[in-house]
C-alpha cells in the first residue's frame, strides 16, 4: 500500500522501481513490482540498494506515515460505502461480508470504487472463511490478478492450492508454530486443514483449532470480531542518531514515555507496571542493555508520572557509550477509573491538579496540533538530533494545508 500511496501523490513514479523505507530509512519494507523484478529483496538495506549499479534507478521514499494514515482512512471509508459488514483489520486490509450470489461481482465493484476514489490498486480474495479469504488474497498477489474467488473453485482445486501453500504462510501461523507442527507431518495448509482438531486444541490453542477448521471451510471467526482487551502497550524505537549523554537520553525517554502515555489515554486505559530500557547496537563488540521495571501505584495514565518513572533506567546508563535504542513497556493495564482507590496514596489536591494539567495539554494538542506543546523538550519545535530520520519524505499533500497537492 505504501508504494501505491507514493504513486498517487507523485504520478511520475508510475512505472518506476520504487521502494518505501523503514524507520530511519533503514531498509525496503514495501516494493513496487518493478523493484521486485530488479531483484530488490524484502528488508534489503537501503545503503546496499544504493551501492548496486543495477539498482541505480530505484527510488527510495521514507515512510510517510501521515499520508499512509490518511489514505488508510479513505480506503476503509470507501469500502464502507458499499458493504455493511466490514472489519477494519489493519492499515490496508479489511474483511468484508459479501452476498452469497455472485460475490465476485460485489468484490470487483468495491475494488473499482477504491481505485477511483483513492487511486489505490487492491488484491482481493474470496473464501467461505476469513482464513480461506486470506489464502485467496495471497494467491491473487502471487499470480498478479486483482481477484481470486475460491467459492467458485471445485473442492479439488482448493485442496490443490492449499497443498501448494506452506503452513508458515497461513494467517496466524508464525515461525514457532511452523516448527512445532512439522514433527506432526503438518507442512502445508492442506495438512493443517486435515489435522485432528482436538489435538491442535489440546497441544496448542483453540485459536489454532479455529484456523484449521477455517481452512477446511468451517467459519469460526465472524467478520467484525471485537479484539481482546489490550494486555500491554509498548513504544520502542531505534534512534536516528546514537545518544551517549544522560542529558540527551532523558529527552529520548521523555518523548517515548509521553507517546506511550498518550496512547494509553487514547485507549482509555491505565497502567500499573512500567518497564524502561536502553540498549546499544548488537553488532558492537560489547553491546549494553539496561532495563528497569517500576510499579505505578496507583495505576495511572498521567504523562508526568509515566515520564518520571521512565527515568528510572538513567542511573544505569554509562556516559560516553553510544546507545541506539530505547523503549517503554506498559503492562497491568486496566480501564481508566475502573478501580476505586482503597486508600489515597497521594495528596488529592495534587492529584486533581495533575489531572487538570494533563487535560489541558490534551486540549491544546487537539486544538492546535500534537507538536504545539509537550512535556520537557518534547515541546520544542526544533526536532531533536536523535529523532527518527526520514530524509526522503514526500510532501504531506493531503494532510497539511501548507503543502497541498497542486494542480497546474
Amino acid at each position, binding site marked *: 500500500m505504501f508504494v501505491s500511496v507514493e504513486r498517487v501523490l*507523485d*504520478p*511520475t513514479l*508510475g512505472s518506476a522501481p520504487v521502494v518505501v523505507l523503514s524507520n530511519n530509512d533503514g531498509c525496503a519494507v514495501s516494493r513496487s513490482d518493478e523493484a521486485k523484478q530488479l531483484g530488490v529483496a524484502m528488508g534489503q538495506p537501503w545503503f546496499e540498494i544504493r551501492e548496486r549499479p543495477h539498482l541505480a534507478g530505484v527510488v527510495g521514499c521514507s515512510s510517510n506515515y501521515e499520508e499512509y494514515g490518511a489514505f488508510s482512512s*479513505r480506503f476503509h*471509508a*470507501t469500502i464502507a*460505502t458499499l458493504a455493511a459488514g466490514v472489519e477494519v483489520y489493519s492499515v490496508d486490509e479489511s474483511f468484508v461480508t459479501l452476498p452469497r450470489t455472485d460475490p465476485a461481482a460485489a468484490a470487483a465493484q468495491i475494488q473499482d*470504487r477504491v481505485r*477511483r*476514489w*483513492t*487511486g489505490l490498486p487492491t488484491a482481493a480474495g474470496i473464501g467461505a472463511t476469513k482464513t480461506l479469504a486470506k489464502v485467496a488474497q495471497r494467491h491473487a498477489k502471487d499470480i498478479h490478478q486483482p481477484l481470486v474467488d475460491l467459492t467458485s473453485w471445485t473442492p479439488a482445486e482448493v485442496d490443490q492450492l492449499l497443498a501448494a501453500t506452506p503452513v508458515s504462510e497461513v494467517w496466524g501461523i508464525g515461525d514457532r508454530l511452523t516448527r512445532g507442527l512439522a514433527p506432526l507431518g503438518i507442512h502445508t495448509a492442506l495438512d493443517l486443514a486435515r489435522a485432528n482438531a482436538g489435538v491442535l486444541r489440546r497441544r496448542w490453542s483453540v485459536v489454532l483449532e479455529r484456523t484449521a477448521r477455517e481452512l477446511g471451510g468451517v467459519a469460526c471467526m465472524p467478520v467484525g470480531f471485537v479484539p481482546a482487551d489490550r494486555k500491554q502497550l509498548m513504544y520502542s524505537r531505534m534512534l536516528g542518531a546514537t545518544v551517549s549523554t544522560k542529558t540527551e537520553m532523558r529527552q529520548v525517554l521523555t518523548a517515548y514515555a509521553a507517546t506511550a502515555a498518550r496512547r494509553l489515554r487514547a485507549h482509555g486505559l491505565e497502567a500499573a507496571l512500567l518497564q524502561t530500557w536502553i540498549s546499544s547496537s548488537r553488532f558492537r563488540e560489547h553491546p549494553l542493555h539496561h532495563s528497569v521495571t517500576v510499579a505505578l501505584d496507583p495505576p495511572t495514565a498521567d504523562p508526568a508520572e509515566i515520564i518520571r518513572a521512565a527515568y528510572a533506567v538513567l542511573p544505569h546508563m554509562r556516559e560516553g557509550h553510544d546507545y541506539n535504542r530505547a523503549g517503554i513497556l506498559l503492562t497491568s493495564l486496566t480501564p481508566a477509573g475502573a478501580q476505586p482507590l482503597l486508600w489515597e496514596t497521594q495528596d488529592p489536591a495534587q492529584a486533581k491538579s495533575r489531572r487538570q494539567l494533563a*487535560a489541558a495539554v490534551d*486540549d491544546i494538542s*487537539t*486544538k492546535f496540533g500534537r507538536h504545539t506543546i509537550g512535556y520537557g523538550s518534547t515541546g520544542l519545535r526544533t526536532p531533536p538530533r536523535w529523532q527518527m530520520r526520514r530524509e526522503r519524505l514526500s510532501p504531506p499533500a*493531503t494532510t497539511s*494545508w*501548507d503543502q*497541498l*497537492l*497542486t*494542480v*497546474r
Partner: protein
Amino acid sequence: MRSKDGDTQARRLAAGLAVETTASFPNPAQDYFEGHVSLDRNLIKHPASTYVLRVGSEALVNLGIHPGDELLVDRSLPPRPGTVVVVVHDGEHRIGRFQIIEGRAVLVTDLEEIPLTVDVEPWGVATILIHHLLPGERTARAPGRRGAGGGE
C-alpha cells in the same frame, strides 16, 4: 470543568456543541440547537473521495480560478462537458474544462487543449472553489515558493 464523558466545556464550546447550563430552570434551546452550519457537511458530499488541491497556475484564470486558490475535487464524480476536471497528464496534475470537441474528449484551458486519450486519466471533478479575499490572511504558501511566509 469536565463532564462525565471526559469532554471539557472549553472543547465543546469551541466545537459549537451544546453545554450544560447550571441554572435550576431548563434551557429552552436544548431540544432545538443541533450545531452551527458546517462547511464540511454542506460542501463535501463524499468525504472519502474528496480532496483539497491548491491551484498552481493561471490555466483557468478566465473562470476566476487563481493561483493560490483551493479546489475541492471529488474523485467519485464522472467528468461532464463544461465541468472543471483534474487529470494526470505527463506525471502532473492538470486542471481544465472538460469538453467534447468533434466527438473527442478534450481538456481545455486558457493556454492549451489536451486531448484525453486512454493514457490521460481523469482524476476528479472540481466542485467548490475557495478564493481568499483578504490579502495576506492565508496561512498557505503560494505554490513554487518553499518556506515563504503568507502575504502577497
